[in-house]
């Protein structure tokens, strides 16, 4: 047994001597009564002596115990027994601290996170490490993780850890935190407390699909929580940044280009509001402002899209100033300047742009020597060369190379941004390995069926090379009775043809496909589909080779590299596409956007794992504000540099704030309580740290409940002793007999 206030126990033990002292003092104070009939007194006393002494002893013991029990009850004892507290500990308090993006909400009187950390500090200060009190700390930013587990008695160290915490840019993972606590207490049956410190704004609660709560364990656990915030705070957030292209051919860049910015407002509107968007190009302090737009946010609209004209050439000149070599990749960031906004860190969003003087593209197919063939003799490689380089004098565009399938190796593919494969059946095993390698380094690979082969025998080799993320391609081609038209899918998540979106439908109309190989897309993304919904062109990211080896699943991709598989060959025997106007913009856009997508790999969301194994690929922070946890998960927005095995830069990764966490709307108290009750099913009703009048009652909500069982027992015992003493003293005083007499 341990006591939260052992001093009071000692005081109680000393005070237990009071009845004895009072008894002694009373004996001394009373003047003796002279008595003649002593022989009869002594005789009566001799007869009653044993009973009287027993009565007196019991009475004295009861009175001493009453005082001792009062002291013990005030000392807040905690029982051991078969509870976790028996391991030498007293109270175990699990603090679940909301450090999500939502917790950074500042209504002008300090952020929610500051209040959470202050509350956590108060809770810890109310504990006594010397008495065995322990604290476990779990931070809730996705994915929730235990910072202090198992709970520690070093309260100062825990307090220091809390003081060093900052809000992240990830959303809150309340179910994950609950799962950690429930798992930790799964085998416990004693007294513990869980303190959930969150503002319970909508961004923190997330979707109510809790399945992680564990029903076992935690019996007798007290659940306390900070009160849900009641004030709604206006928060503006940048949700999306979409430049015209992700791959910039610097040699062909001239003049401002549009950057589409998606914005959303959470919370109440306080009328039309003047805000400003600033576009910068650059990774760190050397970022240059390349565009700015001031506009009025209408009061009635929560979601708007604004276009900012950004002068990429200006930014690229700034990056190349001083004789520096312009980087191959650069970060485009858009910042929303809105003073007094609820959350500041979700006002910036980033995107990586790939920079090239010229796009290096290769076509793998039979090389032609001598004079240019006639149209009737054109093979798929010829059509592609023509589409990729329609004007031989265009030196600012794509630098095209033709590679013989038998000669494909890593050396020849090194530095390629895009590789088109027209004769996959002719590739050797080394060729497939080289293709996979260049794809994983951030290049686009487009595979078309072998136009001259009736059976596609390369699919197995391709699957082996690109991993199991590759869709299944049928070996035998099938002929269509009537030419099949093409159309974009209903949902083009890849977005590589966005630049053609306005004219794409018209360009696709005259195109017909008469032969195709069936593709089972699996999890790949269709770019074009046939009228029957079958994919005509699909995209996928190659599986990371080391990940596939380490996990054995082969299902993980790092988001770097972009592979397209066409269900038809660029050949007149398969389709009339080569003869249609679509072929040039289609091949050009697929090459440019695909290459950009392959290298930049898009934007990540804070709270998701780094998309590569840091040990093998050498991910390093490229700026000042990036942090990664010991679990390899970046919870803060920022820029990461992905290195290859030789230390060269392979890609840049940007992490943007989780916009789902930008919702600062308050949650009703009952809803928050219901949610917590589902997450912690064995803890009973949630107790709030503040009462209805806004007064802090942390001790009642947390500490008092911890000691309640034993204190209540002691108080009941005390009551029993008081009653026993009362009855005993009545018996010992012989008042009844006297009255009867």
């Amino acid at each position, binding site marked *: 047994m341990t006591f939260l206030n052992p001093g009071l126990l000692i005081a109680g033990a000393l005070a237990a001597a009071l009845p004895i002292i009072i008894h002694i003092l009373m004996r001394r104070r009373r*003047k*003796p*009564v002279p*008595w003649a009939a*002593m022989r*009869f007194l002594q005789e*009566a006393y001799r007869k009653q002596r044993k009973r009287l002494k027993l009565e007196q002893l019991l009475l004295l013991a009861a009175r001493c115990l009453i005082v001792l029990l009062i002291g013990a009850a005030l000392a807040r004892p905690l029982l051991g027994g078969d509870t976790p507290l028996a391991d030498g500990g007293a109270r175990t308090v699990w603090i679940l601290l909301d450090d999500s993006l939502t917790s950074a909400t500042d209504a002008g009187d300090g952020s929610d996170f500051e209040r959470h950390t202050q509350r956590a500090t108060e809770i810890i200060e109310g504990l006594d490490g010397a008495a065995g009190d322990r604290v476990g700390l779990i931070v809730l930013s996705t994915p929730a993780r235990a910072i202090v587990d198992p709970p520690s008695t070093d309260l100062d160290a825990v307090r220091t850890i809390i003081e060093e915490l900052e809000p992240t840019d990830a959303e809150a993972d309340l179910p994950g935190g609950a799962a950690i606590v429930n798992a930790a207490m799964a085998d416990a049956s004693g007294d513990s407390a869980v303190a959930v410190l969150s503002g319970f704004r909508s961004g923190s609660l997330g979707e109510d699909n809790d399945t992680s709560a564990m029903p076992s364990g935690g019996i007798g656990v007290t659940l306390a929580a900070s009160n849900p915030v009641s004030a709604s705070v206006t928060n503006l957030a940048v949700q999306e940044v979409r430049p015209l292209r992700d791959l910039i051919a610097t040699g062909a860049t001239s003049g401002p280009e549009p950057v589409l910015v998606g914005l959303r407002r959470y919370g109440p509107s306080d009328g039309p509001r003047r805000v400003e968007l600033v576009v910068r190009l650059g990774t760190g302090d050397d970022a240059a402002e390349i565009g700015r737009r001031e506009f009025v946010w209408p009061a009635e609209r929560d979601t708007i899209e604004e276009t900012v004209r950004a002068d990429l050439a200006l930014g690229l000149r700034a990056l190349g100033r001083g004789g520096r070599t312009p980087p191959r990749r650069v970060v485009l960031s858009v910042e929303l300047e809105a003073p007094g906004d609820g959350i500041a860190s979700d006002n910036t969003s980033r995107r990586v742009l790939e920079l090239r003087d010229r796009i290096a593209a290769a076509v793998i197919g039979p090389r032609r020597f001598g004079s240019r063939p006639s149209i009737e003799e054109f093979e798929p490689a010829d059509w592609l060369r023509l589409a990729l380089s329609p004007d031989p004098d265009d030196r600012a565009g794509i630098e095209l190379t033709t590679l013989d399938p038998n000669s494909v190796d890593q050396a020849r593919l090194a530095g390629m941004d895009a590789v088109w494969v027209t004769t996959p059946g002719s590739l050797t095993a080394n060729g497939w390995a080289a293709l996979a390698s260049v794809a994983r380094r951030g290049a686009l690979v487009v595979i078309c069926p072998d136009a001259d082969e009736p059976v596609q025998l390369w699919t197995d080799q391709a699957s082996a090379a690109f991993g199991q993320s590759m869709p299944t391609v049928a070996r035998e081609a099938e002929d269509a009775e009537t030419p099949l038209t093409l159309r974009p899918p209903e949902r083009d998540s890849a977005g590589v043809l966005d630049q053609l979106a306005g004219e794409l439908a018209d360009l696709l109309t005259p195109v017909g496909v008469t032969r195709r190989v069936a593709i089972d897309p699996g999890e790949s993304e269709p770019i074009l589909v046939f009228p029957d919904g079958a994919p005509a062109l699909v995209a996928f990211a190659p599986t990371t080779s080391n990940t596939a080896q380490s996990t054995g699943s082969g299902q993980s991709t790092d988001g770097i590299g972009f592979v397209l598989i066409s269900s038809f060959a660029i050949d007149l025997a398969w389709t009339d596409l080569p003869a249609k106007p679509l072929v040039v913009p289609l091949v050009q856009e697929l090459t440019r956007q695909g290459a950009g997508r392959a290298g930049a790999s898009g934007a990540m969301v804070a709270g998701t794992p780094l998309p590569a194994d840091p040990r093998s690929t050498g991910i390093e922070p490229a700026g000042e504000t990036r942090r990664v946890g010991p679990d390899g998960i970046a919870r803060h927005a920022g820029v990461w540099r992905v290195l290859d095995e030789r230390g060269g830069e392979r890609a840049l990764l940007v992490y943007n704030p989780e916009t789902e966490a930008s919702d600062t709307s308050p949650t009703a108290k009952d809803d928050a309580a219901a949610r917590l009750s589902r997450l912690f099913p064995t803890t009973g009703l949630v107790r709030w740290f503040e009462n209805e009048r806004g007064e802090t009652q942390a001790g009642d909500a947390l500490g008092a409940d911890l000691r309640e069982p034993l204190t209540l027992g002691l108080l009941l015992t005390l009551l029993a002793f008081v009653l026993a003493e009362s009855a005993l003293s009545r018996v010992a005083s012989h008042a009844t007999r006297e009255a009867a007499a």
Partner: protein
Amino acid sequence: MPGSTAQPSSDAQLYLHPQTLARLGSMEMRAKMIVEGVMSGAHRSPFQGFSVEFAQHRPYAPGDDPRHLDWKVFGRTDRLQLKQYQQETNLDLVCVVDASGSMNYGSRTFADASGEGLKTSPDGRDYWSKYDHATALAAAVSYITLRQGDRAGLVVFADEARRVVRRSSAQGTWRQIVSGLSTQPVDRPTDFSAAIDATLSVITNRSLIAVISDFFEDPEKIREGLARLRHRRHDVIAFQVLDRAETEFTINSGAPFDGLEGEPRLRVDPRAIREAYLEAIHSHIEEVERTFRGFGFDYHRLSTHDWLGPPLASYLARRAARLKRSRFG
């Protein structure tokens, strides 16, 4: 309060209240048993002689005085019979008063008991002790005895005979008795047997012995003393003087008890042992009474909270009537 060891006042008038004397004036102290008096008086004598009143005949035995032969009987029956007579003698009263420490207890205020308007005794006590009551009683019976022409004497005892006033019929004897009582310290332990021995040593003829005490003594020792008195053919009247507080034990204070005869201090809640105490003391009182009556002696219990006159007058009246019945019946 009790516990004082100061000597009682020598003021003899203090212990003979006029009301008491008025009550006792018509009473005579009559010996229940036949006593041997030195003067011819109102009391029956055990000596069957030739004087006043014929008692009985008995056969003649060699050596008997032939002057007491009843010749008329011899003439009628031809048997030698001696005439025996019953002689009335003077009464010798000896008051044997207990002056042990236990007698120095009293819960009645002195002002209430003295009847003289005094709030304290001459030695400063504010309570009326059992010894005060015994002194008054001894003074009363001595006064009656002396007034009817009999002799009265006194033995004051505790662990031994502390003071003796020889028997005398002189009127001044009464003052000597009261003086002997009131000047006696009341603080010694009790030894009833030794006191009886001392009394017998100073009484040569049969007497009426009035033993005045609380009799807080071992009943066996009382029995031994009474046996010796009975053996010497003395008549005994036992006056047991008790305080109401002793017989009712209404003390509620948690204060310790100090014995008046040197007993060790006793710390006990009186309420806790009241029942057992009352059982013990009443058992003892009954035992004492049984003991006295077993020897054929009179026993009379007096409370210090009662006036002395009425109960004593009542007792003496009953005793006189009983003696008269036994004489003529």
